[in-house]
């Protein structure tokens, strides 16, 4: 520590150590915050299966399921000082015809809707236009945590993604359920998904499955060509 340059180096070196340790303690402080997410309602409101092409020039025709749904959930307890954003998504799941021995996935699972909910500390990172950004920032002005952020209430929500299957067949598929998932993305620490069992102060997400339902038959188009069965 005899010269200025050496003191600069040593001070910076110890600063990096302190920064790392503080970050580790912040990550560990997540465990002290209870997580009690709850789902009020998750149900389908409208089901439709249509035929379409994966992209414009494709000659392959596939069936696509369009699943509209309603969702009421309170995930606000997932927002702590260390939460950067919350990724919420709804999947549709159904068992494979042959089960796990058929060379297929035992369970088919596809995301139909997702959303990123930013914490007020991460609002500036949201992928929004200037007007929507202003509105988002004003909605939590002066607050470091906004308890309204995690409250979801969707009525007859259109899916973001129409889902299909590698076989191209989804019509009249039975035993389909919707499942709500979340993924907490902290400022420092590890990513956490909805866990299967209670873990100390973190409770599992209950009631996050819809009732089993059956996808309908293909909706007949009005201008259906004769003999277009292949």
């Amino acid at each position, binding site marked *: *520590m*005899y*010269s*200025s*340059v050496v*003191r*600069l180096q*040593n*001070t*910076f070196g*110890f*600063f990096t150590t*302190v*920064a790392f*340790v*503080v970050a580790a*303690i*912040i990550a560990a*402080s997540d465990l002290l915050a209870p997580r009690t997410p709850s789902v009020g309602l998750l149900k389908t409101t409208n089901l439709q299966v249509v035929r379409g092409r994966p992209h414009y020039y494709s000659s392959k025709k596939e069936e696509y399921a369009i699943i509209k749904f309603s969702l009421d959930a309170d995930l606000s307890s997932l927002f*702590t*000082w*260390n939460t950067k954003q919350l990724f919420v998504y709804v999947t549709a799941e159904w068992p494979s015809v042959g089960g796990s021995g058929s060379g297929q996935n035992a369970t088919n699972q596809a995301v139909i809707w997702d959303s990123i909910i930013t914490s007020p*500390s991460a609002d500036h990172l949201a992928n929004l236009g200037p007007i929507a950004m202003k509105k988002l920032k004003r909605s939590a002005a002066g607050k*470091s*945590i906004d308890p309204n952020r995690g409250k979801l209430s969707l009525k007859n929500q259109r899916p973001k993604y129409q889902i299909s299957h590698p076989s191209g067949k989804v019509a009249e598929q039975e035993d389909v359920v919707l499942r709500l998932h979340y993924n907490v993305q902290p*400022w420092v620490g590890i990513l956490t998904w909805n866990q299967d069992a209670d873990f100390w102060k973190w409770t599992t997400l209950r009631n996050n499955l819809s009732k089993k339902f059956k996808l309908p038959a293909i909706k007949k188009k009005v201008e259906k060509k004769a003999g277009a069965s292949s």
Partner: protein
Amino acid sequence: MAEQILEQARELFEGQIDFEGQKLVELLVNVALTLVGAIAFFVGYLLQDIKLAVYVGLAGTAAVFLLAVPPWPFFNRNPVKWLPVGGITPPANLVVDDKMFR
């Protein structure tokens, strides 16, 4: 003249401090940075505001840099007293590496 200014500039840039000062600055840096980290965490945790924690931590670290890096006079209060150049005979019976100096 120019040489003198150059010498002063070099000393200012090097910023040497004495041995007692080096001991003191090491202690100061370790204690102050640890305190800054602890304060940053508790302020952030109590107010549940991570941005505030980052700003407190960075501001405190900047203050520690300002305290530790320049050769402040209180790091130079125990200068080393060198023997004068030449003119002094070594003391009798001085032993270095088992050899007697005369």
